[in-house]
């Protein structure tokens, strides 16, 4: 049943000075999984890792705990190896496609300066958290002589707040309670480490503080319930935080992003918003939730709460973008009475409804590496977990495509709930429905 250790030869390409290896475990016990995921990565690595990315699904929370998981991992990892990671919904690597387990990417290369940083209370003050994280990195790497820089981050994803007498609240029909949540519940939720993730603020601040770094990352999440998530740094388990690993090296960085949605004819204008542009109050000067249900989704608002389950099973197919910022793609987080909570921050007022489907997602994955000669030493991919929500058991087709395109190149595709990317000179963006790929261009591509 356990696949680790089978005869899959990863990496070890001739002439490459960069060695990379994929770690993997399907053990249920946190301690066993932590140990195995590191051992399996080290097994294929000829030299000690320069850095180590460690991810797991949320299941170890109830099977020994994440501290045990991380302690066991560190027991077998060479001391002092820079490590970050966090919880993710699912992952795909050379071994398979999984919504349960642990995965790692270990990279070894002598000409790299590496450090890690973190920032806490990311939901309460995302810019401060990002600044603190960036300062740690800047301080450690400012003397590095290498010119090529990249940063990998994990940010705490939204967590549904627990409201007294109401429990964990997502959709609220009542206008009164909707207003309460809009003006009181959501603003105070971040004091308790819950509420929206504010990833856009984080990545904007990281880009401002470290403009020369190529950045890729995602929001750590549970299994889609949005009740808890954790970020790893060294031997520490954080929540409501940012963790980042930064690298300076002599090899050029490869970073590519693609989005798997297309626009529809449906458009509307947001005419009033609140809570730092995360909650929409009015669309075309009418109640946001009524307008959205009636005019956009064409669901009678009075039936929505009967059709709620149907909506939630189909809403992944209808994201939205902005005429002002096509790069941003987001969805509806929840309906709060008359208002709409967005999955992340508005990036304009003129919304264009989009759609997607399984074939479109697979086409995007298929086109990822067509223009390159496959000389990558490794690939780290942060890709929307919504792909798995849509593809369901056919998510394995993503793996089949990657295997075909990449051959024996070690790759790890993590599926966080929101992905972020920053390419120097361009706008940083946190969004869903995207696939972002990081590698190094050893020998040119």
């Amino acid at each position, binding site marked *: *049943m356990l696949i680790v250790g089978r005869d899959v030869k990863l990496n070890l390409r001739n002439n490459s000075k960069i060695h990379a290896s994929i770690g993997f475990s399907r053990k249920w016990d946190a301690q066993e999984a932590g140990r195995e995921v590191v051992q399996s990565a080290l097994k294929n690595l000829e030299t000690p890792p320069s850095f180590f990315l460690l991810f797991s699904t949320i299941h170890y929370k109830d099977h020994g705990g994440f501290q045990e998981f991380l302690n066991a991992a560190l027991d077998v990892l060479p001391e002092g190896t820079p490590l970050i990671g966090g919880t993710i919904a699912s992952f795909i690597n050379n071994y398979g*496609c*999984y*919504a349960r387990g642990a995965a790692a990417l270990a990279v070894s290369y002598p000409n790299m300066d590496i450090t890690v940083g973190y920032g806490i209370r990311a939901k309460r003050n995302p810019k401060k958290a990002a600044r603190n994280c960036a300062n740690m990195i800047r301080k450690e790497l400012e003397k590095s002589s290498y010119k090529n820089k990249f940063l990998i981050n994990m940010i705490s994803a939204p967590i549904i707040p627990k409201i007294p007498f109401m429990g964990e609240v997502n959709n609220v029909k009542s206008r009164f309670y909707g207003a309460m949540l809009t003006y009181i519940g959501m603003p105070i939720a971040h004091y308790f480490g819950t509420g929206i993730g504010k990833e856009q603020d984080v990545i904007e601040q990281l880009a401002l503080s470290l403009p020369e770094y190529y950045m890729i990352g995602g929001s750590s999440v549970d299994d889609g319930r949005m009740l808890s998530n954790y970020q790893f740094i060294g031997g520490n388990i954080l929540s409501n935080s940012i963790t980042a690993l930064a690298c300076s090296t002599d090899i050029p960085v490869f970073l590519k992003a693609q989005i798997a949605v297309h626009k529809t004819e449906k458009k509307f204008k947001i005419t009033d918003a609140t809570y730092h542009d995360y909650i929409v109050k009015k669309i075309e000067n009418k109640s946001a939730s009524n307008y959205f249900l009636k005019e956009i989704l064409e669901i009678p608002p009075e039936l929505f709460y009967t059709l709620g389950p149907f909506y939630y099973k189909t809403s992944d197919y209808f994201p939205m973008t902005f005429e002002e910022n096509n790069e941003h793609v987001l969805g509806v987080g929840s309906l709060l009475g008359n208002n709409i909570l967005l999955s992340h921050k508005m990036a304009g007022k003129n919304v264009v409804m989009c759609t997607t489907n399984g074939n479109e997602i697979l086409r995007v994955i298929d086109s990822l590496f067509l223009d390159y000669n496959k000389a990558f030493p490794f690939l780290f991919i942060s890709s929307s977990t919504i792909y798995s929500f849509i593809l*369901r058991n056919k998510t394995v087709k993503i793996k089949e495509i990657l295997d075909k395109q990449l051959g024996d190149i070690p790759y790890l595709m993590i599926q966080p709930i929101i992905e972020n990317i920053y390419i120097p000179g361009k706008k940083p963006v946190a969004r869903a429905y995207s696939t972002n790929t990081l590698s190094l261009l050893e020998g040119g591509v």
Partner: protein
Amino acid sequence: MRDDPIANVLDDLLKLDDILACMVARRDMISVMPTGDSFKPEVNQIWDIIKRAMDDVFGVIRDYSQAGLGEMEFRMQDYEVLFYVFPDTENALVAIIPAMANKGLIEVEMENTRREILKIMEEPDREPVLATA
């Protein structure tokens, strides 16, 4: 049954919170169950009616498996029942999940389970438990 590797694979699947019950079955017959021999308690109240509906679905699977029928599902009250058919047989991996569960991630693991079971079934000295259609 206790040492059955298929039962062990089902044990793994059943550990997922949203898998309330799982089995390898065909019409009128559960071939392999998890080693605990029991489902999660919430299923018991609805098991009889679900079992009857399942048998009807297995009739369809028997008729269309060889035509390439791969998956089926139905929703009853607050539950959904997913059928992952073993190719060219009248058997399926069956899981009962809450109707509002995140099916995308569950089905990623259902597919892994189906593939693991198929691999076990292909082992040369394995006694056949799957009837062909």
